């Protein structure tokens, strides 16, 4: 049995199984799109409160640094 015959046998055995039933690229694109996170307004408000608090009362900064 030569190489060509082995290749043919392998193709016969695995050829059917390895063929994709559909194009996976659109699904991949959809998943990549899903990963973009949108930050809700509530979290922006919290961040603004944190920044305002740190600016108005700088004494809280070392306490935060100690705790983080």
């Amino acid at each position: 049995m030569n190489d060509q015959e082995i290749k043919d046998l392998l193709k016969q055995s695995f050829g059917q199984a390895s063929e994709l039933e559909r194009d996976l690229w659109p699904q991949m694109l959809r998943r990549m799109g899903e990963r973009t996170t949108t930050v809700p307004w509530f979290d922006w408000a919290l961040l603004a409160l944190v920044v305002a608090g740190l600016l108005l009362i700088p004494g809280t900064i070392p306490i935060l640094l100690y705790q983080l």
Partner: protein
Amino acid sequence: MNTHPYLRAYMAGVVVPSLVLLVVVTAYFFARFVYQIAIPIERAIVFPMALVPSLFGLWNMFYLWLRPRRHLPIGLHGALLPFVLAPIGITLATTLGFLQLGPNGALWFGRFVIPYHEVAIAFCIGLMVYYLVWKYLVGFFNQVIGIA
């Protein structure tokens, strides 16, 4: 195959405080050696360097364990951590002698008095910071490491 999810949760949890630690240590060293503020850095650094990262990792393991039982959003789970950290931090600071709780406020390093209302505000800010950090940073690392 055992994929060691709790080990990965621990690793994902310790990333953020380890990165913040660089900022904290830099700030401490600037205060100590550039501005010559006499603070006992070696005693103060124990808590943020040794305990906080470990507790972040353990808290993330706890989140992973808790998720199938009583699911809490990761941000809220993280916002509960200061309720554990603050008593430990205060106890350690008073034990090591760089924090005294006086009638007017908390005396840090024997020279900085922070009134209690500012300590309370700092705690509330800490809750918000922890909520955001856990929701976006620890949550991101959990996703990266495949346990989100």
